[in-house]
Structures are given as C-alpha cells and as structure tokens.
C-alpha cells in the first residue's frame, strides 16, 4: 500500500542527504520525493511516498524523527488527507489527443509541440497515462506527490 510521509527539517546543508541516505541505509524504497523551502525560511518541507506495511512505515517515521535535522514527521496516510501531483506532458502537434485535453491544460504551444499540464492524484495521473499511451507523448514529467491533512491537523511549528 502506498503511504505518504511528510516532514519538516532544518533548511541547512547536509539535511537532505541525511534523509535520503537513511532510506538507502535501512533498505527502504522511496517512490517519490519532493522538497522545497517553507514560508518559514529556516525550514524545508519534504514529502515522500513509499510502499510498505504499517510496521515498516512506523520504523521509517521513527528513524526519520531520530535524525537531528528533522524537526517533525507525520504519516499523512494514517488519516484522511489530500494528495496531489503535477504532471507535464509534451506532444507533437500531430499526436495531440484533442478529445482528452482542453485549452485550459495547454501551457505552451507552437507549430510543432504542445505541452500540457495536469494536476491530480497519483493514481489519476497513472490512469491518464495509460489512456493516452497510444498517442505517443514525447515526454512525461511528474512532480511526485504533495500531501496535506484533510482535518485541522497541520505540520507546522510555532515560532
């Protein structure tokens, strides 16, 4: 089962390598990984999705929490949450499937190439890819999952 873990870490050199290193060191798989600074410039937020049973995910979150640079960890998939991923797809003009995308998806267009943008859950994006496969997209880029809890829970710290 796919799990989404989010964490806040000190925005400083070496912090990311400790998190990524932990995964290879302990034999966990990362499926997607997204990292960016937060509105608090001293913190970065990192979101990762991974496959694993509950016991493995519990170990992962505990081990992440032990890293000195990690301020806070949450397993978003423990309760209801919103997951979104951004995908960019490049088509040649000839192979562009007009019945699948409308004008609002198109982010760039010239006489040879049309680039589209789609936002959805990872499984929606998977499904879309399988539908357009025959239309030979030139390139597909996915951002990896972001997540946010559906209820009042937040992954923020008070300064």
């Amino acid at each position, binding site marked *: 089962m796919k799990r989404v873990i989010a964490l806040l870490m000190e925005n400083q050199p*070496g912090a990311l390598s400790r998190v990524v290193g932990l995964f290879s060191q302990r034999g966990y798989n990362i499926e997607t990984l997204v990292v960016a600074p937060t509105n608090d410039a001293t913190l970065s937020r990192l979101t990762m999705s991974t496959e694993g049973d509950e016991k493995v995910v*519990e170990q992962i979150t505990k081990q992440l*929490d032990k890293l*000195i640079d*990690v301020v806070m960890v949450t397993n978003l998939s423990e309760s209801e949450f919103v997951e979104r991923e951004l995908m960019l797809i490049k088509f040649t003009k000839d192979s562009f499937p007009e019945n699948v995308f409308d004008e609002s998806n198109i982010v760039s267009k010239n006489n040879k190439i049309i680039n589209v943008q789609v936002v959805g859950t990872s499984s929606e994006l998977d499904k879309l890819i399988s539908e357009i496969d025959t239309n030979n997209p030139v390139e597909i880029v996915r951002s990896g999952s972001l997540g946010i809890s559906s209820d009042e829970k937040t992954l923020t710290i008070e300064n």
Partner: protein
Amino acid sequence: MDKSNKSGAEALIHSLHLEGVDLMFGYPGGAALHIYDAIFNQNYVDHILVRHEQGAVHAADGYARATGKPGVALVTSGPGATNAITGLATAYMDSTPIVVISGQVKSNLIGTDSFQETDMIGVSRPIVKHSFLVQRAEDIPDIVKKAFHIATTGRKGPVVIDIPKDFTDPEYKFEFNYPTEVNMRSYNPPEGADTSRIKEAADLIATAKRPVIYSGGGVNQNNASEELTALAKLLNFPVTNTLMGLGAFPGSDPQFMGMLGMHGTYQANMAMHNADLIIAVGARFDDRITNDPNQFALSAKKIHIDVDPASVSKIIHADIPIVGSAKESLTALIEELKSRDLKTNESDISEWNEQIKNWRDAHGLNHSLLEMGAQNGKILPQQVIQSLYKETNGEAFVTSDVGQHQMFAAQYYHFDKPRQWINSGGLGTMGFGLPSAMGVQLAYPESIVSCVTGEGSIQMCIQELSTCLQYGLPIKIINLNNAALGMVKQWQDMQYGGRHSSSTYENSLPDFVALTESYGHVGIKVSKFDELESAMKECISLKDKLVFLDVDVDPNEHVYPMLEAGNAMDHMRLSKDEKTW
C-alpha cells in the same frame, strides 16, 4: 568566563576544556596543524599521540565506556578522517558518546579534489549520531556545545565536527563566548521516566510465572545497574545480560543466568524461550539474541524499556513499550511495585528458578576447568580466562577484540560491575582491544586493565604498543594464541566441511615475546599448562609494565553453546557432538 579574543583553534580547545575534557587522543596532519599548535600552548587538555587514527577513536571510545564521560579524538583530513571511520562505526553500533574532530582542507578548496581532501561528513554520515561542518570560525563554540549535548543524551552516540583549516587560522581572532545551554528545536530526546504504562507493566509482573529480566548495554550506558539489580532482587526474577550488558547485574550472583544469545548459556537461552514475561531493559532484540525472530519467545509478553523509540517494536513487538531513561523508568517501576505491596506468584517463581537451576546443572558452563589441569596435554582457552579471573580477583577491567577469545572472556570472567567489560559487540571490530584498553588505563591509572585478545585481532592495532611505551600504560595483554582465526575456523569446521580457507597463517606468526620486547615491554610465553598460573601471577604482579602474555591454547576448541541459525532460542549446539534438538 574567559571572553578574550581567540582563534578558531584556541576556541575549539577552550570549548573542550569547558566541556570537562582533560584528555584527547589524536594524530596530527596538515589540516589539523593550527589546532595542534593551540594544544601546545595550553595546559588544560592532554593529548595522547596514537600510532594510527583508528587507535585514537577506539581509545576515546574505551575511555567513554569505562568512565561514562565523552571521549574525544582529533584527526587530520583525508586519510586521517578515513582511518577514523572504523572507530566511528564501532562507537555508533554500541551507542558510545564520543566526539571526533577532523581537520578539513580550506573552505575554498572543498570540492576541488585537493590534497588530503575527503568528504568526511558524507563518508561518516551513516555511522554517526550527527555531524557538523563548520562554516565560520565564530560558530565553533556553539557547535562544540551542541556536539557534546547530542553525543551524551538520549541514545548516546558519536558526533563528528569537521573543521576547514581556514577556520582555525591563528591570525583570525574573535570574541569567545561559550553558550551556557543548548536549545535545539529538532532534538528533544526522552528524558526521565516514562510512567504512562508503568501500572500495566506492574500488573504483568504480578501475575508472571516464568519471568526473565533481559538487559543490555543501555543499562550500563545509563548508569542504571543499581536500579536493575534492585528490581531483580525485589522480585527474585532471574536475570540475563547481553554481551554489551554484562556487569549491569553482578555476574557472580546466583540469580544471574549468564549471557544469552548466540553463545549464551544453555539456561539463559532456555529461560528466554520458555518465559511467559520478558522485561527487556536497554536491549534491542538484535539477531545475535533472537535467532529467528518469528520463533522468538512466543509464549512471552514483552515489556520493553528503552530510551530510543525506534528500538522499541523494531524487531519484536513490545506489549508494554516504555520509552524513557532506563534508570528513571526502573525507579518508577520499583516504586509502583512497592506501593502495591506486591505479591508475585512466589511458588511459581521458586518453581521457575528451580527449573533454571536444573538447566544450569544439566548443561551450564563449567567454571572449574582450571582445577582439571591440562586437557590432552593442551591449555584450554577457557582456563586462561579463569586464571585471569582468579589472579585479578574478578576486579580487572577487561577489554577484548573479536572472535572466540571475546566469547570465552564474556562467558568465563564474571563481571560484577558495570563498565568493567569493554568490547565491540555491535560492529565486531577486530583491533578494538588494545587501543580501547589505553583509554581505560589512562582513565584509571591505578586499576588493572587487561586486554583479552587473539593472535589475529592483536595484529590489527599492534602498533599501539609504541603508544603504550610513550605514556607508560601497564596493560596486561592476554593473547589466546591458537595460531588461527578461531571463530572463522570454527564456522568452517561446522559449515564448510573443515575447509580452512584463509584462516591459518602457515607458520608466519611473529615471535610475540620478541616483538613486545622490541617495543620496550615485557613478553612472556606459555606453552604448557603447568606454567599458566605462575605466568599469569607474574604478568599481573608487574604493576608498572605492559606485559604480553602469549599463551598457546588448544587450536581445536570451539565456543559453545551456539544457537542453530534459523531456529528458536532452544536450538543450541552444546559441544561438537551434542545438540538440543
């Protein structure tokens, strides 16, 4: 406090002094020379010059294990840093508090493949609790404060401080302010007792019929030996210790079952397998204990006390997790048990203790081998340990290397006090014994410090004999010489049809007596059983001398009991031709 202007190097040494450091181990080199000059110009911190950086880190580690205070090592960049890696990994696996300071190339050269450049932060990342790359000279006091705080709190561990040479430049001075406290939003290890589940733990204890107290290195690290012993005495429950936990409960106490696990005693492993309650304290259910975790102590409830939340329910599910200091949590548990005027199932407990006694009588270790004299004309390695125990009244610090001699020492020297037994349990580092003994001897100059080793392990850090002469360290090296890599050979005997692939030396061993004497120490050779006890006496009596006692032992001896891989803990080989299943 001294607020005068200091260079980064002076600030570093002064910060160490303010952390209470009076001794450090190291080896100089280009990137560390500013620091070495600052050491020369002060009297607070003594520096011990080792002969290899691995020795420096093991010595700092031995010092930390024996005293409970953080050990400090200083190395240069590049090869100095990489030579420190085995020492760091050793300390990491056994959770010892050490701080390793490495010189780094100048900050503007980092990333350019400059001379003696290694990415120390990157290379050491998976084997440190944390690490710091200094970015400004002014940050050094704050980083030292944090490094010692992190190394010595929660589950302890090694911390690296990597300092580019320009930040220790004597020409650049700044106002020195040492922080009085540490405030880290991202690091708040559990402190004190976890009392949330204490009542449930007490309920389980009150109804247990076949309980075992299983304690590990965490009890020694947390100075919780007194509390552990008090709990065991209050309840009259049998106790077993891991390899790292020996000494936490008196080894010569009748309630003690001996070590458990791979080479644990028959009674300790049988008690674990048949228990209905296991109270684990500062132990982590590693593979050398549980054997097959899916068949581990299936009828037992588990209470797990540990300061590291990630150790709880990692391998074995904890029915009652208690995440906090072992010392404080045990105290809370004892108070709870006393407050309810606890009645355990006394008849069940005495029946259980009787069962354990029967197991011990049937297949326990023979602690009277010494009285039996030579066996087939040979000295058994176990007899050497018993002789050492006898001549030191069981009071010596014993360090060891890794292999058969380590297991014999763990099995046959009864450690009555915590921090008395010092070995590399987690990483299993050959070469640890002699340098760690240097750290212990420097911390306790008046005590007998012996290093039980083998002719394989001792050669991995033998260069430290020179350090021992320079600083007058009268370590007693007890070499169980079986002319082979004994544990490797044992496995080859058992599992590879006796094919001794690269585990013997074909008569290439040095004359250890001559070697030791060339380093300026005393060497004694023992090849006959009749010489053993008098030679051991002489070795121990030479108070001011390092003595290398080279004892030829039976090369065919195996370590038993031995758990049979892939099975439960009751599957043991008891000798070359006896097994329990």
